Structures are given as structure tokens and as C-alpha cells.
């Protein structure tokens, strides 16, 4: 039920993001979704790609510090209040969102949002029980 996300450490200087994109591009890796968390000195690039192993290898070969993290891809109704409803459900279960970002693609009439919770399993359980669709990794990578 979980999706693998790759995180890359980036120094806050020009050209670093472009370099990651170049490395992934030449390895033939396609990016499905991404976000950047930034501080004054460094950033963390988080990406969901179509081929994790290839992406990890290409980045490591180019001396990037990378890590894999499990995140949850949730279908959110693409209507006003759609995300609010999901977050309300999680709040009841005392699950915190560490970070989240939206997927560019849609799944049927729904938006897809990538979540990193402080308790992924609890969140998945609560959302599934409420009838919310959680997307499988394999599906997400190839959207």
C-alpha cells in the first residue's frame, strides 16, 4: 500500500537541481511527482519516479546523498473541501502529516496527494476504513 520516494540532498547553490534532473534524464528515469523542502543552506528534493533502482544507482554514481522513504499516495476528491475531509479523518486518529505534495496526474476524477505521516500504517488503516483509495506503488510509478 506504500509508495517509495527518493530523497536527494542538495546544497543551496545554483545548478544543483538541474544536475539531478540531468542525471535522471540521462538514466532514462521519468519523474512522476516531486517537491523540494528548503532551508537557508540546503534543500531536500523528494521525487517519485518510474524506476527507483535505476534512479538510485544513477544518483549514487554521481555522488549524491540519497535515501528511500515510504510515503502514501492518497486519492483525494477533486472538490472543495476534499483535502479537508481527509485531514479531519487523520486528526481523529492523531496522525500528523510530516509533509505532503500533490501529484500532477489525476486518477479518474480524483487528485493524488503524496503524504508522509508520522505513522504511515495507522494512517493507511484509518483512510482505508473510511473508504478512501490508497494507490499501490506499481500504479503510481506508471501513472
Amino acid at each position, binding site marked *: 500500500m506504500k509508495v517509495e*520516494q527518493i*530523497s536527494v*540532498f542538495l546544497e543551496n547553490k545554483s545548478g544543483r537541481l538541474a544536475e539531478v534532473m540531468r542525471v535522471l534524464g540521462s538514466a532514462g528515469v521519468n519523474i512522476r511527482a516531486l517537491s523540494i523542502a528548503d532551508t537557508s543552506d*540546503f534543500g531536500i528534493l523528494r521525487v517519485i519516479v518510474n524506476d527507483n533502482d535505476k534512479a538510485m544507482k544513477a544518483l549514487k554514481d554521481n555522488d*549524491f*546523498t540519497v535515501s528511500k522513504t515510504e510515503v502514501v499516495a492518497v486519492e483525494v476528491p477533486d472538490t472543495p473541501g476534499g483535502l479537508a475531509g481527509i485531514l479531519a479523518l487523520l486528526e481523529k486518529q492523531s496522525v500528523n502529516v510530516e509533509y505532503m505534495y500533490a501529484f500532477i496526474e489525476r486518477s479518474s476524477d480524483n487528485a493524488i496527494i503524496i503524504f508522509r505521516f508520522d505513522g504511515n500504517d495507522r494512517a493507511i488503516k484509518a483512510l482505508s476504513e473510511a473508504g478512501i483509495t490508497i494507490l499501490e506503488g506499481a500504479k503510481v510509478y506508471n501513472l
Partner: protein
Amino acid sequence: MIWNEEFETLPREALESLQLKRLKATVDRVYATVPFYKKKFDEAGLKPSHIKSLKDMRLLPFTVKTDLRDNYPFGLFSVPMESVVRVHASSGTTGKPIVVGYTRRDIDTWAELMARTLTAAGIHKGDIVHNSYGYGLFTGGLGAHYGAERIGASVIPISGGNTKRQIMIMKDFGPTAITCTPSYALHLADVARDMGIDPAKDFKIRVGCFGAEPWSEKMREQIEKIFNIDAVDIFGLTEVIGPGVSSECIEAKRGLHVFEDHFIPEIIDPETGEPLPYGEKGELVFTSITKEAFPVIRYRTRDISCLNPELCICGRTFVRMERITGRTDDMLIIRGVNVFPSQIESALMQIEGLEPHYQLIVDRKNNLDTIEVQVEVNERIFSDEVKQLEVIEKRVVHDIKEMFGVSCKCTLVEPKTIQRSEGKAKRVIDKRQL
């Protein structure tokens, strides 16, 4: 001006015979009272009686910083603790500083030497001395304080820090002399100008005694211009006595007169340990010849200088040492605190997951030293969450502050971005333009 005409202008021959007499007494004393020195002499097959002339100094074993640390805290004291009226300690070292002791007579000697230092800078009774050297275990504050009292000046014992308040006091109390580190003087000027005060016009300061860190002729010019004062270089180190080992005279401002009736300076080749003739650059070595509680024999300072025997226009007969131009080790002085890169490394290594790929960037911003610790991020410490990485940064800043009392900035950098030369990283980039 000369504080102690009799000793400071002693003809060379008389000075040397006084030095020999005092050296012999010191050597006798340490051999008899300090097991460390006795052991070292015995190992070298040396008896105090072998010292028959000043030339025989070269027979004496060197003392190095680690010797002092190994005998922490009081192991090198040459008098019983009940005769020690004061202790001081070196700045900013891991847990164990270097501790030195003073008898009542040592304190008296020190006050005399600082009286000479301040007098050489043209400070006298009637002056108000703003003393911004730190008070406490650091020797700077109390050393300058006792000297200023000895000459009968009025002392403002302001110590370091709280810069805005210092400026208010400098404006309101009207000190005519200042004693502090040269970088702090420039910082005071910056803050004063931010407060709308012109250091050249709004203060009555005439002269400053600056030391405790390396500085340059360029900085002197800068300080003299900004404050419209004479800036005099003074020198000392905790291990030898504190400030008051040598001082420039305001007449020449060219080299620091070593108070040779109390300390014998030598310049040695740092590689071979061989003494070098006057005029040659090398490592500065001191032997104290009047100290009671904490005598030092041929203490290697790691500071690079040279000695100039030319007679000075001020009339002092003491040799002059050139302004310190460097170190034979990698010690950094950050805001007056001694920092060895190896100590920072050991602090970093105590943090789980960190690798020894780091670099120290030392700079001077707004006239204050800054230190930035760059650490390469590896997979063990990397996380997809910003806060986890910030925890590491904060830990580094905290641990270094705990260890040295110096605030630093920690920056995480990408792997293999720290310059490596022949497999060995360049640890320190010192951008300070002194």
C-alpha cells in the same frame, strides 16, 4: 616613557649576568621541586650545575603544551598550594585547560610587568583605562587591571561583551586609554558608528594596548585612524605569565621589547630545535627566570617571530621580538580563544553517523571572527525530513559551543565537495585579512 628605568635600560652585560644568576636559581628550583622537570633533566643526563653560562641554555630540555596538559591541574607548580594566591587557565580547550599558579610575589612581578607595558604605551597616572580584556580565568583582564592600578591610573574594569553598554561608558566616563583585543576595538568602532557616535571625535581615548590575538600593521593603521589614537602591540601567554611578556614602545612602535630580566627569549628552528641567531625567523621559546609558582623552562610557544637586538630609540636595552607572523601548528585563535582543528574533529566524531569529512571556514565579519563548520552529508545522517538534518546542525553548533565557548555556524554540504588534496582534506580555510 619608562616605568623601571633601572632594569629596562640595564647595559647588556649587566643584564646578561642578572639573567644567568636568575636562570641558575630557576633551574635549581625546578629540579628540586617539580618531579616532571627532574625526570626530564635526568633523562637528558643534565644536572643544574651544568648550566654555567647563558649559552648552556641549549642543553635544557624543551617544554611543550602537552607537558602542561599532562600535568593538569597543578602538577608543574613549584611551590606548595598554600603559597599560591591565584590561578589562571588558558582559554578554550577541551575540558582540561592549562592551569597556571601565582605566588604573591608572582602577582607583584606581573603587576610590575604590566605597569611597564602600559607605561611603554604612554599611559600614566591620571589616565582612565577602559579595560575590555575578559576578567576571570583568562589572564588578560586581571593582568591589565593590576598593571593599570600599579601605575596609578583609574581603571574601568568593564571586561568583555555588552558592547553597547561599553560604548555608553566610553562616552560618559571619558577613558583616555583602552586595553582589548584589536578585533574587539574594531567591533567597538562599528557598533559605536551604528549608534551615531564617531570614535575619533566622541571619545577621549588617546592610546590603546592591543594583544591576545594576531593582528597586522594594516589593522594598526585602521584602528589608529578610526579612533584617532596610537595603537600599541602587547604580547603574552598564559603559560609564561599572561600579558606582560613583551610590549612595544610608543616611541618606535617597531617590535615588542621582551622583558628580559624576567624572561629569556630564544628563536629555534621548529624542525631541529636548534637555536637560531638574531634576525632569523623561527619558533619563539621562553624561559621564565623569576617566577615562583609556575616557572617554565624553554617553553615552545609555536608562535613564529624573530628577535632584533638593535638599540631602540626609547632607550630600552631589551631585544625586540617581531610581531607574531604565524604558528608552527594549526592552532586557530577565534575571538581570543585557542582552537585546534583536531579538537573540532573529535567533537564531530562523537556525533553518531558523521564522517570526518569537514572543513572549517574562518572569517572576520564586522570585525568579529566567525567560524563555519561544513560537514558532508552521508546516507547515515541523511533523512527526507528537514528537521532531522537540522537536529544534526544544531548538535554540532551546541557541542562546539560547549567545548570552546565559541559560537559557530554549521552547514551541511554534499558529499565529496570538500576539497581533498592527495587524499588529505584541507581542513581550514582562513579568510581573515588581518
